[in-house]
């Protein structure tokens, strides 16, 4: 499989688990730990898919997404939201998300989502 994936989460465990799973499928992965780094990376590079955590200190994932979309960037975005935060899902779609996955999640299911988003 081909594709460059940007994974953004402040939780190192999640970042590493997602990265290794996606890499095992042959994808190229870069990770970022907070919203402003993510924005920078999103504007610097060409990404096939962005996996974006909602709950981060500093800028939230929704804010990052909003700014990405405001720049006219239509890269597919998969949001990672916490269970019980259904409002994040609504807000996420309103901000232009393509999919969401609730935490705790199965890395395998996430890979399937990413694959689907790659088209």
């Amino acid at each position: 499989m081909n594709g460059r994936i940007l994974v953004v989460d402040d939780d190192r465990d999640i970042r590493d688990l997602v990265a290794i799973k996606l890499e095992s499928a042959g994808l190229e992965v870069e990770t970022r730990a907070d919203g402003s780094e993510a924005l920078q990376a999103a504007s610097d590079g060409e990404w096939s898919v962005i996996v974006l955590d909602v709950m981060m200190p500093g800028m939230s994932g929704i804010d990052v997404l909003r700014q990405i979309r405001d720049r006219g960037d239509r890269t597919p975005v998969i949001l990672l939201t916490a269970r019980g935060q259904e409002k994040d899902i609504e807000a996420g779609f309103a901000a232009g998300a393509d999919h969401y996955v609730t935490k705790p999640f199965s890395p395998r299911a996430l890979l399937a989502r990413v694959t689907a988003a790659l088209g």
Partner: protein
Amino acid sequence: MTTLLPPTLLQWLLVTALLVATVMLVALVTQRAVRHRRERRRAELDERLRPLVLEASIAEDDEVDALLARVRALDGEEREHVGRTVSSMLRGITGEAADRLRALADASGLAPRVIAAARHRDPVVRADVAEALGLLAPEGALALLLELADDASADVRTVAIRALGAFDEPASVDRVVAALAVDSGIPTSVAASALLQQGSAVGDRVRRALEDDDPGVRRGAARVAGLLQASGSGDALARLVADEHESVRLAAMRSLERMPVRDAVPALRAAALDGGTIGEAAARALIAMPGRWTADALAQIGAEAEPGVRRAAGLPRAAASA
């Protein structure tokens, strides 16, 4: 001249004070130095062992045994670190990767250690055990959690009930429902959340719990019924709107917001007209229902209910319409 104290005593006081201050300073610095050293040590271990754990999370079936053997060959400190890393990672994921990590926790000796500590003297340790059992779910975890759910310490019982949320076996569901009882000593939000986590498997049990003699059980079941969309619980919920206990009525109304039941409308209308917190909850349940069921009730609320209830029913203020 006011002298009062012999100079030697004063000197002693001062010396003691300085001594105490010095000891405290040393303690302060030592504490931080030790903590920093431990953090550095952990970072070192992490650098070496983290790749192993991550690799395990994506391992194919035929690779697992070799990885587990590698973990078993590590020294005590390293295996402990693997256990710690796995526990932290398990909070975020489920599915196949989680199963792999659980196998790793077993090989690292963490799971056996947790099981062995289930009857530890210290309630804090037992509570940690309950938490870990829910996370690691080793063989026999359910039986141990059921035991810890009857622990002498309320703290341990609470954690055990929360952990039981990860198990949807009938025994686990029954125990969680029992924990909803008023005098169980377990926060109702913890027990009800566990029930919710057990998911669709609990539908039947929730329906029965709505008729329970204990108001705490009725309240918890009423609250969860709507979130689970438990089919066939509508009639019971409608009855609970007029329950003798206020908290049960409130819980039933919250559920009716998500699961409209036409038979509940008259009782909700009556509650809304009585006003107060209950009245507001009733009004919120009413406006969540189809308009053709509630038009009369809302008209009466508009004319007769107190302003707070009118607000909850989404009705405009008199000044604004005038």
